């Protein structure tokens, strides 16, 4: 398709183009604009659960991963108010889990950590909750550490075995919700699938066993450049 067949819209003054039906987050990325996202993975049904991708359209906030671009839409993204909200959201995620980054295998590859750096979180404004959460290490190849889980549902949506969900929500509400693994299915994951499960998790909540610090700290994905810069430095696509 040519530009003419695309929808034209704006993000913070910049004219952008999108395929009909494309979400704001995906379209922004194609236009070299980073909108932070945690629960979103291109190709999976959007969950709209982390809320970090909130943008403002016509004075109303909406999640850019769930909202499709509309012709002529004017999207506010990089504003002081939204960036403050995003920082708040990240802080809430940090204090409501137990994130001890220096001892985490995912440090440097972790999207939560990376977004926190990008929004310059120093010390959260909220008190730490230090919730008591467990680790499920029953399957042979993976473990699930609930202390680090941000309940983004990427594993729930993305990891299946024989067409069945391996991960699911359990419980509800502010104090009982958690991710559970189907132990039968999780135990049958192949090496490759186990690796995929670890990769789909934005944080260090799903880890592949017997594999640690293969890439040293300092040389990991977000150690060299902030999250989003790969999008911002990309050439605008046609």
């Amino acid at each position, binding site marked *: 398709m040519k530009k003419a067949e695309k929808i034209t819209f704006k993000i913070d003054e910049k004219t952008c183009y999108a395929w009909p039906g494309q979400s704001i987050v995906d379209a922004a990325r194609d236009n070299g604009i980073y909108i932070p996202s945690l629960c979103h993975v291109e190709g999976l049904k*959007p969950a709209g659960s982390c*809320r970090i991708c909130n943008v403002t359209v016509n004075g109303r906030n909406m*999640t850019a991963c769930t909202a499709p671009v509309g012709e002529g839409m004017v999207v506010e993204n990089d504003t002081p108010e939204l960036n403050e909200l995003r920082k708040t959201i990240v802080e809430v995620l940090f204090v409501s889990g137990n994130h001890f980054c220096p001892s985490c295998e995912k440090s440097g590859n972790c999207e939560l950590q990376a977004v926190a750096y990008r929004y310059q979180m120093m010390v959260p404004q909220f008190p730490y*909750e230090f919730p008591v959460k467990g680790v499920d290490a029953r399957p042979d190849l993976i473990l699930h550490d609930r202390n680090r889980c941000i309940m983004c549902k990427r594993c729930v949506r993305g990891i299946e075995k024989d*067409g069945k969900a391996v991960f699911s929500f359990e*419980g509800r509400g502010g104090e009982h919700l958690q991710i559970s693994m189907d132990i039968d299915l999780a135990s049958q994951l192949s090496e490759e699938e186990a690796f995929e499960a670890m990769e789909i998790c934005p944080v260090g909540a799903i880890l592949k066993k017997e594999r640690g610090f293969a890439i040293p700290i300092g040389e990991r994905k977000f150690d060299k450049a902030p999250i989003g810069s790969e999008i911002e430095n990309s050439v605008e696509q046609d």
Partner: protein
Amino acid sequence: MKETIQNVIEKYNRDRNRLMDILIAIQNMHQHIPEDAVSIIADQLGISKVDVKQTITFYHFFTLTPVGEYAVYLNDSAVANIKGRAEVVQAFEDELGIPFNSVTTDGLIGIWDTADIGMNDQEPAALINGTVFTNLTSEKVKSLITGMRAGKDMLELMRVIDAELDGPELLSTMVKNNIRQKGAVLFSDAYEVGYALRQAINRTPVEVVDEVKRSNLRGRGGAGFPAGLKWDFCRQSRGEEVYVVCNADEGEPGTFKDRVILTELPKLLFEGMAIAGYAIGAKQGIVYLRYEYRYMLEYLESILQELRELNLLGKNIAGKAGFDFDIRIQLGAGAYVCGEETALIESMEGKRGEPRNRPPFPVQTGYLNKPTVVNNVETLCSVVQVITEGAEWFKSFGTSDSSGTKLLSISGDCKNPGIYAVEWGVTIQKLMRRTGANNVQAVQIGGPSGICIGPDQFDRGIAFEDLATGGSVIFISEERDLLKDFVLNFMNFFIEESCGSCGPCRSLNVILRNKLLKILDGNGVEQDIDELYKWAGVGRSVNRCGLGQTAANPILTTIENFRHLYEDLVQMNESFVSAFDMESAVAESCEVVGREPNLSR
């Protein structure tokens, strides 16, 4: 067991969308969903066990362990608490020798907390195996326990504490309707079954939609969206298959008007649904009935049957060739958020009641991804009167922005709690006089998600353009501890009832509640009030659904209107209170190593 569970699954055609019904049946049979049943369901529906469990664990009335042959669910709403719940709890615990939220060792009786059950005008109240017991006292609890130990059935149990039960045979209940004021639109004596429907089918569907549009009837479930416009949007979706859904989830604490409509005027409601069905071209209507109202199920089914016999439901309704419409009732299983229309649809599809991301809206993609109109019970009833009497007549009531009348569920500290059909615009002062509410410190309007106002605002009126409400009005008298008895209770309610999807809804409300507790414990400073207020403002602009957007309203509106109550509690001259208790911090480790805490103070 295997066979009975198999039969249940067969009864619902191994349809994953009917998982709620399957689970309800099994929970009733076994007082829980046994692990074996989970395996069988997973196997038969071709999904994983955690997938089955994620639905089970979402709903308060589904459990993985037995809840007791007699499962007592005692309402824990704020109003239940000010009406003597503590005494009832004590009586249960003393008589049974177990703490709340557990089961007797013989498995006979379980006692559980539950969120508002829609009985605020007759608290303390409890559900026992789905039957409602109202106005409980410690004496009545003793009689009930004796009855349960003697193996009495529900009817006998009710008679133990209330000799004269209300209602028709299929609805023998202790629940009183307390209709204190009738109105022109609802509870008028003029209603004649089937009249409006016959009027409607003599006009085109578009004419019916236009009449409803002209009446300015706005949704009575809380959000106030114009009903006619919603129907019009649904028509514009041009679905082959479309649905009418009646939202009878009524979960907002303090609201109970839909319960009274369902009891007194079920035909009015079903007729309203049929009119909606005619207007948007639906063949199927579904009532999503909250589990707390299960005691009405048989009765409502019998009314549906009666209407079928009158040819007001079924095929070629009222002689109109090709107009087929029928209604089924879908039970919920205990989740406030399922009142949110998209969560309700998810629930009707047998899933966790997690609100959907919008767009698309239900009128485009609703139940089974088909265009769906979701309307509140009272909205659908009002439609009948709009069609009978005309839009102009309807508009002659109320204010310019809020036409017609509204049913209010009034409870709390007043002499005559119950149902009041009022014209929109009525002031709080007027309501206080009518209901006999004295020494009122505050009024909570619209339930916990609404607002809390003080006497300086009692001249304001109930209307969409002023004090909007889905129907709940709670009077709070001067002797109550507003922050502890109400604000804290409301925050705990939202924490429990959040679906948990959105990060800020799931976790920020816990942070807010803990900050509130810090203040209530006397460990707050002035900065805590300001932080509380600032943090409470976040949810509105980031969360997905109305629950997360309004969950901090109890804090926001009381800081706005009752800041002095917070200031009385905090240490105004301090800038920091550590609130750190060394003794309790080391208690656990001391116990492990078997030492006394050695704290030189």
